[in-house]
């Protein structure tokens, strides 16, 4: 890992560490309960990829908008979704963020700039651009982020949005969370070219180590800064590793075995640096974990105690 020249201040580092731990612990919490079928909704976990959403969202304000996709928990938690309403949504409860209509892949929190995530690959990229256009049209200062996977670059709507954004100079940051897989398809089977070579034709582009939250922090500081200042689009490619199988709660031992996971763990990496810089010690970390775990337990209790929607409410908002 290349140590960044300047470390973010300890507030930022602590924020990022806590968020990453939250995403990790939340996801890990789901692993044992998923097989018990209390959550009837397809889970795409973010374990191992936490650095990307967290190193991005540390630079965003509540009014910055973000669109994302089926692998939704990471960006949603990083952007600040209420843990209880997320958990309740997974339980199919009426207190869920989408009032139980959406499930795991369809999260929403309009007040935090999350206007709904899609489970169809690709389209969300255009939604993010539309939010950027709205910012431009209303002379707002915030920016918008289109957050998507490597597989989504296959889709025509990715290309169309790239071209549109460059032509119209909208404040949009493309963030490609490149975990090297689209379902069971390795990236070299689904994308021929390096997406960065293409994005560079259209806009300022950044290559980021998506397993290292400090590199993400640094890269996104530049990328977000560029979009905010220039009011033009930019592209950030974050290569990372998918620890889990595409869907569900199993580790992908074949493609991402234990030793690989340990080496590339973004949480470990940050902890090590923070400890060496005396920003935190082991008990501080334990404290964060305990706090996070308590929040998760509270969310679980909240979700379990929440009512299911009434079958009579089926047609509400239809």
């Amino acid at each position, binding site marked *: 890992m290349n140590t960044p020249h300047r470390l973010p201040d300890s507030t930022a580092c602590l924020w990022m560490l806590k968020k990453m731990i939250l995403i990790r612990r939340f996801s890990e919490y789901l692993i044992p309960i998923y097989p018990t079928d209390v959550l009837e909704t397809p889970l795409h976990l973010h374990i191992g990829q936490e650095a990307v959403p967290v190193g991005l969202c540390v630079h965003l304000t509540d009014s910055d908008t973000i669109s994302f996709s089926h692998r939704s928990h990471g960006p949603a938690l990083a952007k600040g979704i209420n843990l209880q309403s997320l958990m309740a949504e997974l339980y199919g409860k009426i207190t869920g963020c989408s*009032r139980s209509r959406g499930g795991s892949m369809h999260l929403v929190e309009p007040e935090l700039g999350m206007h709904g995530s*899609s489970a169809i690959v690709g389209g969300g990229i255009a939604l993010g651009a*539309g939010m950027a256009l709205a910012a431009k049209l209303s002379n707002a200062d915030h920016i*918008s982020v289109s957050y998507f996977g490597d597989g989504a670059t296959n889709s025509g709507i990715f290309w169309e949005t790239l071209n549109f954004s460059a032509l119209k100079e909208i404040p949009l940051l493309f963030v490609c969370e490149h975990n090297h897989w689209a379902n069971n398809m390795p990236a070299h089977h689904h994308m021929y070219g390096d997406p960065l070579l293409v994005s560079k034709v259209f806009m300022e582009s950044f290559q980021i180590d998506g397993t290292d939250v400090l590199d993400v922090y640094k890269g996104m500081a530049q990328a977000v800064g560029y979009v905010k200042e220039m009011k033009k689009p930019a592209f950030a490619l974050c290569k990372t590793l998918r620890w889990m199988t595409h869907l569900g709660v199993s580790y992908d031992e074949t493609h991402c075995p234990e030793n690989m996971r340990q080496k590339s763990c973004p949480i470990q990496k940050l902890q090590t640096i923070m400890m060496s810089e005396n920003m935190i010690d082991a008990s501080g970390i334990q404290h964060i974990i305990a706090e996070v775990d308590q929040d998760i337990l509270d969310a679980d209790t909240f979700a379990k105690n929440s009512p299911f929607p009434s079958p009579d409410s089926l047609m509400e908002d239809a």
Partner: protein
Amino acid sequence: MDAFSIPMEHDMPEGNRIISYKTAIQEATDQAMMHDSRVFVIGLDADDPSGMFGSLKNLSCQERVIGTPISENAVCGIAMGAALAGQRPICIHLRVDFLMSAMDIIVNYIAKWRYMFGGRVHVPLVIRAVIGRGWGCAAQHAQALHGLFAHIPGLQVVMPAFPYAAKGLLLSAIQDDNPVIIIEHRRLYDQKGHVPSEMFGLPLGKGYLMRKGRSLSIVAASLAVIDTLSAVDSNDIDADVIDLRSIAPLDMEIIRSSVKKTGKLLVVDYAYPFCGIASEICARVAETSFSDLRQPLARITFPNCSVPASGILEKAYYPSAKTIAKKALEMIK
């Protein structure tokens, strides 16, 4: 200003401020843009000198008219994203056929967003698209695909037949918090009629009784209304003529009460027959007004094939006032 509230009319207004259908659309767009800074126009050739067959010419707020590349899918998605973020986009398309490129966004996104997020978001988006016809437009440039959109829950679909409806429905659509697809017919663009100068809306989902009769109920939308009126008027056919205005939601009440009176139903839809809006209306009447029916109901639609290029085949393809008159007279006698 960032919202307007318009009086909801229902009747066909009287007066003689005669303007064309395309001017009515232009006027509604212009007024909406001036009264609500969230309203903007986006789409391929939105900024073309031809101004979408004249319907977008000389707008006061040209800076909120955004021409786009040939990227219908992304453009619909971008319009939707802007709507989610608080704007009021009008996303335009010179041909309904081009919307097929955007079906993923329309069906999987625009239609579903409100429901899929439990009402926590909504998509105040207007999509306008034009049905082509004639001059060898051929199979890819003359489709009327409103039945496809109407099939999808969450989409409202309206089809104005008259200038005043073009204005009133467009303003209602812009004001509505949920997506509305407006299907206009190229052949109607130069049709003229009285249109009030002030802003007004027509309720979405409400039809209008254009002619009162006793012997037959004829239900139509868009250009088919014009042909139906001409058939009925020039043949003294004693029929109720219902202009649907909206095809989703569908005003079943007005249809049912007419059928209750006449006992006979003819639906005219200038579109493919199979699983179309005419099928839906007939099915519903047969379900819920069965005892009112005195004879088999009937439909007039396109034949079940694509539109051919050659003029002589086009003529054989399209129903007309004549076709309607013939069928109506048959059903009455």
